[in-house]
């Protein structure tokens, strides 16, 4: 009897030979140099790398907020850079995004921030919206803070409100841009726990961009390391020292120290 291995999960997102550079004509800075990788459906992909290495650029390319200089960014079967305005809007409905600074609307209260996607994207009544937001606030331990404004919240609370807002429409894919930057270890652990709980409940595909190395690897089904425009993909942390790419080995040595050396 032959043993059949399960087929690999279908990719939710694919980068094919993507190049992206910034700056003026005479001093262009190449951030992504012909990078290719896939994000498997329903799994957690962690993209790690130093500051300014293009991690957030990857998220913006996925969302169509930036366009690649060359190559393709595919969400499902659709090439993001070829989509028109309306198609792009529809494609973005698949996503929830937790921004680095949470990107809460500072003139709206916590309640209004979380209710915004429901008000704008659904036809739910005010009563239903109130109930759904109250349930989310309770799950994320934010009950009692609904009337506060973002400026009155701590960093961890802002992230939790941002996560609540990102998950309101139960998206298929959730992008996390530095979810634990600037948080203390206790708060970081809380965010990780909330991530695991919500992913188990909603089953979304997660892409986490972070430089919280190596702690962030505990959440990963797939790790992508990014350094100097190059990237390499690993199934787990143990494979990192064996990368064939010198810039990746150099980066791993710098951030993971003795574990790699």
């Amino acid at each position, binding site marked *: 009897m032959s043993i059949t291995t399960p087929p690999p999960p279908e990719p939710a997102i694919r980068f094919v030979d993507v190049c992206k550079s910034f700056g003026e004509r005479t001093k262009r800075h190449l951030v992504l140099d012909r990078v290719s990788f896939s994000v498997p459906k329903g799994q957690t992909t962690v993209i790690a790398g130093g500051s300014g290495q293009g991690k957030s650029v990857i998220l913006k390319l996925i969302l169509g907020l930036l366009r690649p200089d060359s190559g393709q960014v595919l969400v499902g079967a659709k090439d993001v850079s070829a989509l028109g305005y309306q198609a792009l*809007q529809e494609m973005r409905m698949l996503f929830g995004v937790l921004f*680095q600074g949470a990107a*809460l609307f500072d003139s709206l209260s916590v309640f209004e921030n979380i209710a915004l996607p429901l008000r704008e994207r659904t036809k739910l009544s005010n009563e239903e919206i109130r109930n759904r937001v109250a349930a989310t606030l309770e799950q994320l331990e934010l009950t009692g803070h609904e009337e506060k404004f973002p400026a009155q919240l701590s960093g961890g609370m802002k992230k939790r409100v941002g996560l609540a807002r990102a998950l309101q429409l139960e998206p298929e894919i959730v992008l996390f841009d530095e979810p634990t930057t600037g948080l203390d270890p206790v708060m970081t652990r809380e965010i990780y726990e909330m991530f695991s709980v919500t992913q188990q409940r909603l089953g979304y595909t997660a892409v986490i961009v972070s430089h919280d190395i190596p702690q962030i690897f505990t959440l990963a089904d797939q790790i992508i390391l990014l350094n100097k425009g190059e990237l390499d993909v690993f199934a787990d942390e143990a494979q990192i020292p064996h990368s064939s790419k010198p810039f990746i080995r150099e980066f791993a040595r710098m951030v993971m120290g003795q574990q790699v050396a």
Partner: protein
Amino acid sequence: MNQSKKETFSLLRIVGGLGEHALYLLTDLGRMGFFLFSALRGLFKSPFRFRELIKQLCFIGAGSVTVIFFTALSSGMVLGLQGYYSLNKFGAEGMLGSAVSLTLIMELGPVLTALMVAGRAGSAMCAEIGIMRISEQIDALECMSVDPFRYLISPKFLAMLISVPLLTAIFDVVGIAGGYLAGVKLMGVNEGAFFAGMQQSVTNHDVILGVVKSYVFALLLVWVCTGRGYFVQKIRGAGFGAESVSKVTTQAVVISSISVLIFDYLLTAVLL
């Protein structure tokens, strides 16, 4: 030989720099054109945010009444005094009502109202949108498939287009009252002559010219101020973060004020 190579190289750099600057200006103009189109289109998209419109009307319109009142009163009184001084030399003080009202309705009312609103509300709008841009709040709206033009920009456009003509009307009335106070009550010009001169000289055409100007200025103000804030990260030389917002806000007020003055001349030349 070496010297001539150097000269050619520096000439090429100058021409290249000029070309690059021209390309930047064209791109910027194209961006702003797209912005205007999207903002106007957003007015017709549903659901329209009436609550936001009311908030903006309160901020731009009601909030500017005090500054408009004092600017109009002082301009009207100065016009009354200066007009009296000049007309008195020819024994034509009776024409004071006509001079004050025509100057205010056709020129000073629309222009000074627009400049005051640019300084008070235009700068605030630019800074608000600029901060929303750099703190990724506008990106967040786009990621939620919420059209930032319909949600943020279009209510500001409509509020400005409603408020500025009304503020101009208030400016005209208060300015004429100021001219009346200075000319009639202080300098002793005949009250009947003041009002009769005004009635005889001000025609519908003059009033329409003032109204058209106020609509054009309102559009210019809100377009430039919100547009500069929206593209804060794409403006050359603006820098990054808080500094970029402050620079772009200054730039927005300067550009919108200069545009108002240029369009004032053009509209007067075409419509007078």
